[in-house]
């Protein structure tokens, strides 16, 4: 192939790398009102009185809004296809505030200083309630986070809000209890995964204005322009047709921007004042007033028969969705959806549990979206099982993992069409020298090295729901414009989609202008999340390009007065296969815009899939643990990836490296910590430590391409799967090194050392007792 499979630089690379003003805050007009949010200092309270008079009178203050000034219709902020599987439990401003940082008032002023001053002049009396801060005791807590009557859900996911339950979920195939009883060996363990922050470098920001027809135009750092448009329509109670959302270059998202976070505040200010308005969240707000990964508790029971076949998998979960439920039900479902299918020699599987409300910042979307939490739990349990069975952890997986061509255990009608996971494991083993290093090697100076592994799957788009379209037009200069609604947040999706179109049309990427994303112009796309862009939008692009190619051939043939079968198109001209008549693309294009009876040439494509072909990764970690301090140094991390066909090797590799490092962060360094009043303490880069350059060791990435027949050029996805393996692989490596099983993330030197000392103490006690007994016996 000419373009697909090539490591082309991103089409926006030079501009964004050299600091050109192409991001949201660079584009805002000078006189836009600055919007700031006054926030609740209490984790759970109700506003009794709110006095904004003095603040309103401050010079430069344009408007101050409270819960009395906003529509009373509840909505969800989740970026999901309509009808959303999320409870409509939000208002733009609510009388009740449900976490420290929940919005209390919207202040718009001519500049930031004035807005901040105005905020200090607002007087609020709260009635403070006892907050629900521990998700393990949320169920049946005397405080009800959402007592209101007007929560609406499109689906019945077993909400019981009086018990603070958002969802009760269960997926079951076969009789898990019976199968576990029949198993020769059963392991059981409870795992805790922490909330994690997306920590993208560009915080949340948006601005909007009213255009020449009185429509609201929003420019936002968002992954979901179409969902933002629809959600705002409901939240503001104005028609969707009155809203336009434009997404410029954005500085990262990782799922954080798959949620409407700031747009409603500026939107309502502009509607009330008629003036442009902007909002920029600082880092503190980004950490503490948006969304994080859902913290979860997952209890896993795994049973295997004598031969080492895993016959039963039972996962019971509890997920903390915080103050609002936007992504609660869906992330929870993904825990089971993207773990249980891996081991398909099972006779029974079950995933069940609950998602609960608490008075903390809401859980949202973060790369992996439930699969990350599930992978940590399941893979850690598989490693534990391997040890109990005395089988090599790689061997037990090769024995039990689903292979290409087989069916899933939870969806027995679906065949796995592409997988090279077996080859990924074999390759990874070799690259890390697994056989020499497993399980551990002692070094000098109190150090010991251990190796560990884990595998994972994810999806490519949401089956039967994600539907994307693309349009490609031949312009009058012989160039093409590709119109997309997907949202490149730095990943390079604009570039790889252009590569796909270029491949079909046999042209260079330089001949394609990519336009994305503007809801007035772009074809519909859910946005870039759920690892959908390469697979779903990609197929739409391929179909659009193929349709256009067909039209070019037919139009060219018509002009040359031959039949379409007699001509071919080589990217530059349409010419006869046998014969010497030809017409250049440029000329064809020019002609298509002149005169009577010529149609400009446009190709459209749409794609939605009944399946979500999983990408796979086998991850291997080598750690070095200092026996005296518990300090863990990550020496080597190897990821071998099956994402189907690789569209752009450089960009794919960087996705893997970036995802691994985020996974390393979740495994070892990142934690969201609250104090006992519900204040988030890790609300800065000073306290919340994402990995720095020195924290990551050596990364090695390799690919084992498979071919997904339903995907563009055989591609699947890569965006999320990359974050899932480090936590379980590193935990495994630490266990192999020093015998400490960390089941509660993150894995810190303190946990490791204190447990080592604890184990040493226990074995000393045991030894003493044995000695004592021995002495007793000898008397």
């Amino acid at each position, binding site marked *: 192939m000419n373009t697909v499979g090539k490591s082309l630089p991103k089409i926006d690379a030079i501009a964004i790398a050299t600091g050109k003003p192409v991001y949201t805050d660079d584009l805002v007009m000078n006189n836009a009102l600055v919007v700031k949010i006054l926030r609740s200092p209490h984790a759970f309270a109700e506003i009794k009185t709110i006095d904004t008079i003095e603040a309103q009178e401050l010079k430069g203050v344009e408007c101050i809004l409270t819960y009395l000034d906003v529509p009373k219709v509840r909505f969800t902020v989740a970026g999901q296809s309509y009808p959303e599987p999320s409870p409509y439990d939000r208002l733009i401003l609510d009388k009740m505030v449900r976490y420290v940082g929940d919005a209390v008032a919207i202040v718009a002023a001519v500049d930031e*200083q004035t807005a*901040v001053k105005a905020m200090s002049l607002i007087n609020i009396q709260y009635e403070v309630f006892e907050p629900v801060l521990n998700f393990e005791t949320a169920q049946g807590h005397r405080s009800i986070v959402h007592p209101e009557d007007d929560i609406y859900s499109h689906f019945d996911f077993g909400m019981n809000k009086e018990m603070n339950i958002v969802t009760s979920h269960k997926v079951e195939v076969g009789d898990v209890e019976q199968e576990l009883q029949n198993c020769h060996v059963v392991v059981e363990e409870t795992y805790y995964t922490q909330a994690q922050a997306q920590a993208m470098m560009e915080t949340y920001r948006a601005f909007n204005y009213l255009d020449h027809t009185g429509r609201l135009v929003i420019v936002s750092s968002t992954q979901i322009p179409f969902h933002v448009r629809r959600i705002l329509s409901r939240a503001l109670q104005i028609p969707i047709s009155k809203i336009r959302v434009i997404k410029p270059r954005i500085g990262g998202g990782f799922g954080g921007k798959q949620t409407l976070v700031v747009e409603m505040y500026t939107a309502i200010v502009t509607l009330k004042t008629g003036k442009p308005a902007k909002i920029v969240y600082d880092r503190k707000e980004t950490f503490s007033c948006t969304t994080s990964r859902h913290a979860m508790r997952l209890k896993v029971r795994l049973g295997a028969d004598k031969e080492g076949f895993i016959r039963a998998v039972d996962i019971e979960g509890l997920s903390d969705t915080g103050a609002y439920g936007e992504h609660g039900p869906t992330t929870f479902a993904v825990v089971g959806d993207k773990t249980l299918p891996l081991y398909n020699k099972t006779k029974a599987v079950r995933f069940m549990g609950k998602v609960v409300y608490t008075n903390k910042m809401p859980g949202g979307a973060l790369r992996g979206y439930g699969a990350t939490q599930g992978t940590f739990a399941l893979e850690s349990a598989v490693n534990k099982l391997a040890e109990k069975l005395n089988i090599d952890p790689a061997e037990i997986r090769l024995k039990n993992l689903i292979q290409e061509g087989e069916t899933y255990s939870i969806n027995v009608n679906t065949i796995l069409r592409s997988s090279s996971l077996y080859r990924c494991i074999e390759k990874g083993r070799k690259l890390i020298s697994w056989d020499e290093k497993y399980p551990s090697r002692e070094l000098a100076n109190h150090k010991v090295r251990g190796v560990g592994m884990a595998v994972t799957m994810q999806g490519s788009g949401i089956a039967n729901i994600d539907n994307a379209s693309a349009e490609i037009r031949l312009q009058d200069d012989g160039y093409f414009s590709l119109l997309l609604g997907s949202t490149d947040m730095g990943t390079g999706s604009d570039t790889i989609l252009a590569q796909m179109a270029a491949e079909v049309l046999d042209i260079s990427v330089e001949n394609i202008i990519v336009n994305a994303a503007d809801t007035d112009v772009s074809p519909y796309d859910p946005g870039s999340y759920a690892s959908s862009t390469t697979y779903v939008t990609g197929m739409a692009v391929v179909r659009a390009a193929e349709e256009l190619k067909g039209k070019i051939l037919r139009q060219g043939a018509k002009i040359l007065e031959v039949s379409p079968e007699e001509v071919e198109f080589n990217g530059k001209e349409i010419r006869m296969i046998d014969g010497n008549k030809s017409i250049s693309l440029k000329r064809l294009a020019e002609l298509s815009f002149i005169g009577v009876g010529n149609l400009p040439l446009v190709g459209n494509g749409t794609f939605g899939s009944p399946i979500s072909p999983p990408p796979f990764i086998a991850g291997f970690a080598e750690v070095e643990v200092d026996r*005296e*301090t*518990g*300090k863990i140094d990550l020496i080597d991390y190897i990821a071998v990836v099956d994402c189907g066909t690789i569209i752009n090797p450089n960009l794919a590799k960087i996705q893997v490296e970036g995802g691994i490092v985020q996974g390393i962060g979740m495994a*070892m*360094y990142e934690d969201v*910590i609250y104090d006992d009043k519900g204040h988030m*303490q*890790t609300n800065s880069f000073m*306290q919340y*430590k994402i*990995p*720095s*350059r*020195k*924290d990551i060791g050596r990364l090695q990435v390799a690919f084992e391409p498979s071919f997904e027949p339903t995907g563009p050029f055989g591609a699947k996805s890569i965006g999320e799967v990359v974050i899932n393996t480090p936590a379980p692989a590193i935990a495994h490596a630490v266990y192999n090194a020093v015998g400490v099983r960390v089941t509660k993330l993150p894995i*810190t*030197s*303190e946990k490791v*050392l*204190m447990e080592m*000392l604890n184990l040493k103490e226990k074995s000393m006690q045991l030894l003493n007792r044995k000695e004592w007994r021995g002495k007793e016996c000898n008397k």
Partner: protein
Amino acid sequence: MFTIDNLVQPETLEEAYKILTEKRNNTILGGCAYLRLGSQRIGTAVDLSKMNLNFIKEQDEYIALGCMTTFRDVEISPVLHEYFGGVLPKAVSNVVGVQFRNIVTVGASVYARYGFSDLITPLLALDTEVQLYRGGRMSLEMFLNKPLEKDILATVFIKKSAKKAAYQHLRKSASDYPILNVAVSNLDNQWIIAVGARPQRAAISRHASEELSKGNMTNEKIDHIASLVAEELSYGTNMRGNAEYRKAISKVLVKRAISEVLQWK
């Protein structure tokens, strides 16, 4: 959000001190990395940048560091590499990043007596004095223990000698605050053991230092000294670690620092 009404850049310390003490909410500016985190209402902020106080000078008996010397200046200073096993450059090199170290100043860090400081711990293990504009010259230890009074810390003096020193630290991630740090020095069998980021600020473990100075260096002795340090000093709990863990690793870091010093011939 903090506010400053007025910013001045005086040319002499005398002028600076006068302005500083004019009003309660007048203050000297250091690197400002911490200033921006707070909500102080500052009247006049005094910037010492125009006084050429960013120097590292080797004098006859001392090395003198001006208060506006940055951590980065310390990190790359040939003089400070030459002496004391290069312990000062080593210690500050862990702090956040190069750009950050180009801003953070020696004077502000010492004056603020930060618990997490990577600079104060090794300074305490060396023969360090500070020169205050009003309070005069005194040992660093005395400065750290005296009540806080408004003053300007103008210079830090470190006595030159053949003293050997080592620095050990433990961090959760490389650019984070330390969970604990340790500096150990030895000159003619006079040992000093200092432990910082406990999370309280650095302190000398006197008893342990004296015991160590009695000689007879064996592995058992070193273990014993390390235990003495863990007993003598107090440790606390914060987001980076709990007291029990800090106590446990203080033993290890002290041991390692002592061994490192012993290896310097």
